[in-house]
C-alpha cells in the first residue's frame, strides 16, 4: 500500500497564507538556500531565502510526497521537489501550539528545505 501524507497540502498552503509558520532551524532551510545560491553567485537575503522556501513548499503536489517519518515523537511529511531547476529535500509537520489565552492554534513547523543528502524517489516517480 502506498503511504500517504499525514498533513494535507491544502492545509499546509493555507497556514502559509495565514503566516502561521515557524522556522525552528534556519540552518536546515533558509540558510541552506542562501548557501546554494551564494555558490551560484545569486546571493539571497534572509527574507528572500525564506520566501523561496515558502514558495517551494507552496509548489508541492501530491506526486512530490516521499514518506512519513517520525522525528522526536512527531510525524513529519517528507517530499522531494525540483524547484528553480534544483533538487530539494522538503520536510515539515503541522503542530498545535498553545496561545497566551490558552487556546490552541495550528502552526507549520519543523521546516527543512535543503539539497537532498541521499537519493530518493517520490510516490509520483520523481527521482532526486
Amino acid at each position, binding site marked *: 500500500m502506498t503511504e500517504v501524507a499525514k498533513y494535507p497540502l491544502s492545509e499546509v498552503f493555507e497556514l502559509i497564507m495565514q503566516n502561521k509558520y*515557524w*522556522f*525552528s532551524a*534556519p540552518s536546515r532551510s533558509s*540558510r541552506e538556500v542562501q548557501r546554494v545560491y*551564494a555558490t551560484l553567485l545569486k*546571493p539571497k*537575503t*534572509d527574507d528572500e531565502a525564506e520566501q523561496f522556501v515558502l514558495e517551494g513548499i507552496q509548489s508541492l503536489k501530491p506526486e512530490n510526497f516521499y514518506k512519513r517519518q517520525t522525528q522526536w515523537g512527531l510525524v513529519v511529511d517528507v517530499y522531494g521537489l525540483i524547484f528553480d531547476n534544483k533538487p530539494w529535500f522538503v520536510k515539515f509537520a503541522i503542530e498545535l501550539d498553545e496561545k497566551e489565552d490558552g487556546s490552541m492554534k495550528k502552526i507549520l513547523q519543523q521546516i527543512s528545505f535543503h539539497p537532498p543528502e541521499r537519493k530518493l524517489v517520490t510516490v509520483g516517480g520523481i527521482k532526486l
Partner: protein
Amino acid sequence: MLLTMVRGPFWWKDFASVTLIEPLELLACSNCGEIGRQPGDAKIVDRATEATIRALTGMFIENIIAREKCSQLVLAKRVGITPEYLSGIKTGTRTPGFQTYNILKILSENASAFKISDPQFHIDKIIAELPIESYHQALKKLA
C-alpha cells in the same frame, strides 16, 4: 527557544557573516544558539543587517578620508568604483557589495594598504624586474 538578544552572524546577499552593531531580540536555542524565526523576523533581520553594513561602510570611508586627507574621487579610483557610487555608500543611501565593503575595510584598518592601492606603488620596480620576454608574451596573448 528563548527570547534573547542576538547579534548574528547573519547572511546578507554576498555577505556570509555579518555581526550586528545593535543586537536584535529573537528566539534562539539556549543549547545550540540556533535562531528560530517567526513570520516577519527575516525582514527584521535583513533590515538590521543591511543597516549594519551601511553604517560600517560609511565609517570606513570617513576613516580613510580623515587619515589620508584624500578626496572621494581619489578613493573611488583606488577602490575601482565611481565617485557617485562612493558618495552613495558614504552617505548610507546605497549598500555596497561584499568586495567593495571588504576593500574599504582593509583600507580603513591598514594605512600601508592605502599606499599599496596607489596604482603607481612599486610599479617602476615591478617593470624593472619583469623579464622582457614575459612582457612580449603577454602582448602576443592580447593581440
